[in-house]
């Protein structure tokens, strides 16, 4: 009898505790699907998914695609009203295209008193805000930097002329050693050219969309990009990012262009993956007139068609929180979008800290209008054809100009939308 009593009390207690626990988990039984770029961003998200489920009761399925296919997956899902994704992570240059299909986050931010002031203001303007609406919270920004060998280079030059002189000095093809590791396949190479054009003071168009691509800066930057190839492994025109980073990590190049945060930073000091352990650092590109640009920034937002918007917002808050941004930085080399994280001592003492200077400038090198991706493709074709000697300088420049002119005629930016990027 006594045992039965004890058992009954224990059972009631258990039910109460379970009920209490379930009541705490606001989103128990719900699940969301979030779309990421297959890189460290998705790896971090997968790690936090378990913690999120434990805290809220909601399951998170992280779906990720490589950069080359992410745009089309996201674009098709958003534009066709597909409700498969509860949160998506557009690159900043896609904001103008996807904004009509994204939820305005302002009410969510106001409701939860989200600490907006901590997000780097210039960065948010360029990544996550469009047409006076907030369509995403930025969580990563990668300014144009390069990785270099500290045992060979004491100080990185600040002009492209000095840079080329340094390349000439470092290049030693007879020994299989090159000054530069370059991803020469057109996808990445055009991005590198864009940063040179910008750093020299060039633009694609002014803020009212009057084309300015046919300029001395465009021509000079194309010539500089072509000269790089003299100082790179002859295989570089066919290289994607992986091969280029591998060349640097193998100790076969003195300077690596593009995205040090993606592969060089996470692997550079790992003896199993790198022959340059302790011999590399990050520096801004030669910035000359306009300064360093933010080549990549990703924001996270909620599609209008999403089924579980509240859960998605809860996930966004977690993923962009100060705590997670610090973890993203230390563990995954993802550069924070929060000012307070950049001020932390463990961030300030990190090799990636030179990115902060560049992040503050916050200029984005892309057009962010719906026709932006098409414009970028004209640039890719022109740069790649010029670098590989298939087109001359005039042909490359006129191809870009004619293409952009046609795009602006056929798909003009919405009234009032200024060119805040390139």
């Amino acid at each position, binding site marked *: 009898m006594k045992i039965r009593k004890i058992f009954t009390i224990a059972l009631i207690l258990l039910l109460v505790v379970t009920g209490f626990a379930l009541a705490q988990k606001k989103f128990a039984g719900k699940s969301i699907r979030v779309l990421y770029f297959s890189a460290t961003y998705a790896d971090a998200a997968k790690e936090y998914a378990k913690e999120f489920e434990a805290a809220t009761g909601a399951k998170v399925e992280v779906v990720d695609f490589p950069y*080359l296919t992410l*745009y*089309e997956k996201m*674009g*098709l899902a*958003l*534009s*066709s009203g597909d409700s498969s994704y509860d949160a998506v992570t557009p690159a900043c240059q896609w904001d103008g*295209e*996807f904004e*009509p*299909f994204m939820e305005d986050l302002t009410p969510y931010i106001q409701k939860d008193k989200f600490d907006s002031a901590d997000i780097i203001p210039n960065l948010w303007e360029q990544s996550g805000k469009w047409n006076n609406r907030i369509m995403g919270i930025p969580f990563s920004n990668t300014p144009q930097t390069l990785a270099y060998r500290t045992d060979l280079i004491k100080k990185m030059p600040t002009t492209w002329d000095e840079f080329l002189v340094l390349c000439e000095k470092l290049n030693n093809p007879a020994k*299989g050693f090159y000054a530069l590791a370059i991803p*020469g*396949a*057109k*996808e990445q190479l055009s991005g590198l050219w864009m940063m040179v054009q910008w750093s020299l003071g060039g633009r694609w168009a002014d803020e009212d969309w009057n084309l300015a691509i046919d300029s001395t800066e465009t021509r000079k930057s194309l010539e500089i990009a072509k000269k790089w190839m003299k100082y790179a*492994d*002859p*295989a*570089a*025109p*066919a*290289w994607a990012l992986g*091969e280029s980073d591998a060349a640097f990590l193998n100790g076969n190049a003195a300077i690596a262009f593009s995205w040090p945060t993606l592969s060089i930073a996470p692997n550079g000091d790992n003896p199993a993956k790198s022959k340059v352990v302790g011999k590399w650092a990050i520096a801004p590109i030669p910035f000359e007139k306009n300064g360093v640009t933010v080549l990549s920034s990703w924001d996270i937002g909620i599609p209008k068609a999403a089924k579980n918007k509240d859960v998605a917002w809860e996930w966004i808050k977690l993923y962009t929180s100060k705590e997670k941004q610090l973890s993203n930085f230390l563990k995954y080399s993802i550069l924070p979008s929060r000012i307070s994280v950049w001020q932390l001592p463990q961030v300030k003492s990190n090799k990636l800290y030179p990115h902060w200077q560049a992040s503050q400038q916050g200029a984005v090198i892309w057009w962010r209008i*719906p*026709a932006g*991706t*098409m414009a970028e*493709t004209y640039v890719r*074709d022109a740069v*790649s*054809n010029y*670098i*590989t*000697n*298939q*087109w001359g300088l005039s042909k490359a420049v006129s191809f870009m100009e004619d293409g952009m002119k046609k795009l602006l005629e*056929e*798909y003009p930016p919405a009234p009032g939308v200024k060119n805040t990027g390139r």
Partner: protein
Amino acid sequence: MLVTRTAYQSTTDKALSWLFVMPVIIILLLAAFIPLGWGLYLSFFRYKLNMPSATAFIGLRNYLNIFTDELTILSLRNNVIFAGLSVSIELLVGVVVAMMLSGDTRLSRGLVSILMVPMIVAPVAAGTLWRMMLDRTYGVINYLLSFVGVPPILWLGDPKIALYTVAFVDAWLYIPFVAVLILSSIKAMPTSFLDAARVDGASPWKVFWRIILPIVSPVIIIVAMLRFIDAFKVFDTIFVMTQGGPGNATEMLPTYIYRQGIKFLNIGYSSATAIVFVIAMSVVAYAFQKLRDRQLVRLG
């Protein structure tokens, strides 16, 4: 007993035939003609999926743009060279391989199994493998060639070579397919022809040239048609190996249509390009069919 067909039976047979064919017609309508019709309709519009407000009926302008767009013309030229070259290599090597394996020995049977390996490799995987093997500095192909004194070649980064390189990789993938079909056709030949020729003292070359080749030629024509159309639709290998580069040296119509439709969400223009592509391929298929019919008539 003489069985005569009445008008009633004939009508019933016809109705039954139609009934049996109907599911295929319905499936074809749903799976092929309706999307094609929809594509044709869209091709008359400026229609960008992510800019619905810019949608407008523009008549034939998308079609006119195709013939004035230098990249479409370049893609078409690349496509013709690519398909012509890869299919020629496949047929040439395929016939040789089929002849070599046409004996009924254990070795030839074993070799046929080995020959099938490239066929079962997904084009994306094959493209990735070849991309690594063809790297100028780290690739195994240049390493092997260095033993015979060949200097390193920039297989995929040199615009003068890249198109031929990807055509070669495509040929590598599909030579087994061609060889196996031709081999089965050779094996199905009546041996009496060959025996008679040998008794008459014909040389192996004459046996091949005068007897085997004419008899298997209708099969070769069909294989050529299938492969030509397929090679024209190449996508995965190019996408993985070069993304259409360097510059636009390996840009093909399918990668170009993909770029317009999926990357730019420019549905109107990509539909027009796809319709032109379908018409061109139908003409090619018709020409090959005619060639085959003529060959069959010649063979009696």
